[in-house]
């Protein structure tokens, strides 16, 4: 379906980014094809979240290009980015729910902003998304009243509100119990298989990366140290990659 010649959905072309003199992404090149799941692994502070934020244009590269669905977004301003952002769902590390509005309104927010659907239909869809993540009864709950795992799931519901073809997820299992974490993995796997969603996940969780990822990318100091399937990485010549892959129980 997506041969090596098809234009990748997400392409990083020699992207570099520094913060205060520290190089977080160093000449990073990366491709994710349609309907595939890419898991970005690496130790803390290796620029994984930074890479993710480049995909929606929240961060701009110092050099290099970021191309989404064939469109170079590197130099686009906020307005020009809008159509691309609408095609991307983003689950932030701590869910980043808007705490001044209810959980349901958080999920309804993208619909209210970007569709002209009547209120009843927006509420119905938001409820449906919440039900998908097991929060069907929590439309009117305020985010502050949710546990960490519930916030994460609500955040996922919001990220999926507009049925985006691309889903970005920043550490889905951080701070979650293994059961909830597995539920979220199952949900993403379902999206990949059912809706053919292209998924990029930043994670420390090897089992979940193995289950979900078609390709695993191991970042170290802003560069790709190894890439391939979980089996490829486990046989990597790089000792750090092998050590990371062997720490299987490690999550969060």
């Amino acid at each position, binding site marked *: 379906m997506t041969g090596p010649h098809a234009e990748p959905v997400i392409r990083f072309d020699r992207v570099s980014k520094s913060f205060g003199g520290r190089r977080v992404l160093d000449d990073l090149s990366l491709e994710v094809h349609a309907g595939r799941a890419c898991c970005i692994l690496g130790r803390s502070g290796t620029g994984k979240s930074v890479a993710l934020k480049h995909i929606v244009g929240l961060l701009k590269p110092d050099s290099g290009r970021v191309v989404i669905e064939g469109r170079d977004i590197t130099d686009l301003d906020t307005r020009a980015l809008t159509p691309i*952002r609408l095609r*991307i769902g983003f689950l932030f590390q*701590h869910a980043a729910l808007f705490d001044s509005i209810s959980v349901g309104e958080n999920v309804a927010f993208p619909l209210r902003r970007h569709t002209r659907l009547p209120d009843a239909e927006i509420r119905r869809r938001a409820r449906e998304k919440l039900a998908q993540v097991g929060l069907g009864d929590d439309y009117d709950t305020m985010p502050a009243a949710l546990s960490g795992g519930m916030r994460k799931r609500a955040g996922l519901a919001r990220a999926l509100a507009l049925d985006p073809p691309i889903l970005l997820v920043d550490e889905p299992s951080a701070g979650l119990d293994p059961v909830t974490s597995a539920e979220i993995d199952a949900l993403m796997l379902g999206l990949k298989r059912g809706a053919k969603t292209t998924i990029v996940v930043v994670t420390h969780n090897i089992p979940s990366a193995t289950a979900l990822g078609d390709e695993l990318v191991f970042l170290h100091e802003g560069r790709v140290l190894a890439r391939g399937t979980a089996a490829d990485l486990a046989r990597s010549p790089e000792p750090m990659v092998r050590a990371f892959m062997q720490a299987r129980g490690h999550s969060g």
Partner: protein
Amino acid sequence: MAWHSLRLALVAAGDYAVFAGRAVLEAFRPPWELREILRQTLELGARSTPLVAASGFAIGVVLSLHTRASLERFGAEALVPAGIGLALIRETGPLTAGLLLAGRLGAGIGAELAAMKVTEQVDALEATAVDPFKFLVVTRVVACVVAVPILTTILNFFGILGGWTAERAVTGMPLGLYVERAFSLVDFGLYIPSTLKTAVFGFIIAIVGAHQGLHVTGGTEGVGRAATRSVVLASVALIAANVVLVRLIVFLFPELA
């Protein structure tokens, strides 16, 4: 060292000027975010009303006590209501309301936006293709520009009422006579510029709070710092701006001098 500090101060001032300029420009560009502006205005306004009403009343009482003590010496007690009205509406009301609201709204905006920034809610807005500057900053700026003059009027109203309460306790003056005398030296020509200048106070409060909030550094600890800095900076900027505004008003309306 001194040069370095001066340079930093100038850079900061420039930064604020750009931020404020952007807020003004963006306020006149669609999408208007009217719903959010209305929500902010009602929320900021309604939450501050008890504060300015109670403060206004107390200031009215105190003004009455002071003016009476001063005017009695000249046998001019009859001028007490007029003195209160003039003092309140021309300067005491606007400046007190400005400073109170710099505390209330400045800290609120600074802390809220800083918390949103730290918890990636600002990023989440932007990733949802909503311009955070319009949605968070412009709405609060417009809300403050609208709400602060209204809140000043509320403070003035309760100030006059407080003045009357104190006056009645001493002389038993009826409300009608008091109000007539209180407004004997005040007309719309005085009221409008004095109250409208607080729209500028509102602008300063919102800009400083929003700037501090969105430029928070250092995680959760930074949220408190952003709130404190918002209040201090907004208060100082407001007092400084008042000097210019009063000069400007006197220049534009010489009859008010």
